[in-house]
């Protein structure tokens, strides 16, 4: 059916069609390789922290790449491929969440004001990777998401707003709350670690 449509469009193209077709697919695949697949480590890192289960995380990243491949014709070369892929990843993640639960996740409203006061000047160098990873995992999924994207992956607030389809004001307040929660969790641990190392 596709070939018939192509023949009706231009008979002259017919003799060259198989070669043209395979080279175009190869060209698309090569381009997809260079534009998208290099971001697999970042996507998988974030997916693991979102889903916790390595198998689910891999499924999520595979689904992301498949969706990206199928909409690759709509991707504008030279634009932000990482942000585009993360947007697809989060759409897939939210779609997966919608399938597995009916109630939406709610972010507990924490005041932006300085009611929780992590120690000023804390440098967090006494904390090991396990402590930091555990604190990150203890955050709500929304807070974990903004920390992963802004702090670990280095996206700007404007990029976060685009990836998560949120107003930038929401991104900023969510990021501030997430950072504050993280510091409130980690500051006592750092004090304990410093006391232990001083003994």
């Amino acid at each position, binding site marked *: 059916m596709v070939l018939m*449509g*192509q023949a009706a469009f231009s008979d002259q193209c017919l003799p060259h*069609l198989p070669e043209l*077709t*395979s080279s*175009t*697919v190869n*060209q*698309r*695949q090569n*381009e997809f*390789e260079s534009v998208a*697949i*290099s971001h*697999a*480590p970042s996507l*998988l*890192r974030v997916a693991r922290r979102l889903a916790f289960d390595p198998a689910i995380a*891999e499924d999520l*990243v*595979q689904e992301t*790449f*498949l969706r990206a*491949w*199928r909409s*690759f*014709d*709509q*991707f504008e*070369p030279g634009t932000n491929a990482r942000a585009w892929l993360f947007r697809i990843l989060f759409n897939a993640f939210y779609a997966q969440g919608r399938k597995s639960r009916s109630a939406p996740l709610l972010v507990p409203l924490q005041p*932006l004001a*300085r009611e929780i006061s*992590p*120690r*000023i*000047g*804390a*440098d*967090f*160098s006494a*904390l090991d*990777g396990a402590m*930091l*990873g555990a604190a*990150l995992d203890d955050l709500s999924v929304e807070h974990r998401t903004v920390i992963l994207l*802004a*702090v*670990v*992956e*280095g996206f*700007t*607030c404007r990029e976060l707003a685009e990836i998560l389809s949120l107003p930038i004001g929401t*991104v*900023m307040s969510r*990021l*501030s709350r997430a*950072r504050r929660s*993280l*510091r409130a969790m*980690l500051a006592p641990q750092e004090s304990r670690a410093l006391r232990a190392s001083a003994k």
Partner: protein
Amino acid sequence: MMDCNEVAEIAPLYLSGELDRERASAVDAHLRFCASCMGEIESQARLDARMREVIAGERIDVAGVERWIRARISTDPRNKVASILPLHSKSRPHRKWVAVAVGVAAVLLLAALGYRGLVSPHGARVYADAARDHQREVVEQEPRRWLSDRASISALAQGQGIAGSAPFALSSGPYHLERARLCFLDGRVYLHVVYTDGSREFSVYFHVRGSQPLPGSPREIENGRILRTSVLGAEEVASLQTKDLTVLVVSDRYSGDALQVARLAATAL
């Protein structure tokens, strides 16, 4: 003058380097006299850097995922449809929608140009340009005219308002200055200097410091100077500003050289 609540509110944009010059300067002015906010920002920057170091440093094995996706896309039944369409084309939209799209695009373009002009005339694009320049000139070694003798490099630097000794300040310890030339990053002339440690090469771009702060998240503070890093494809860009200079360091993202050289620059320049 900004108060503490205003600084707390826009701290995410300050830390990600997204504030326009005026607001960034207002935050800087507040931080100079408010030890409490300065402590908060510094502490947050340190925690961000530590978190990034730990989580981004975790070993991620993507071989299985990459194998799966390569196999899957080469056998995707939709290839049959996609392959007869020209690359990056979709079905032809109705003429009326094309006209609407062109109109909207023109408005957005004008808005973006205006926004860039007002807010970020020399923003994050300079990092992308530096990464691309390093890739082309150093990694792929496109044939170019480079200068390699000390006197010519000093004169080249001075011609750009940069102290003739500045490129050589980093040529110490394990690093050796190899060659230099001028290049354009985001429409401005930078002095591009290539150094080597004997096995790897990396690029340092020098420009006379402007009044605008650098974009990007602060990674750490060295010698009172904020070091920022960004990963762009296979390259990592570290940046800092001294009293007189803007300095960008570009290296392979896995080598860690960019940040290391930026630390050296923060103390040597």
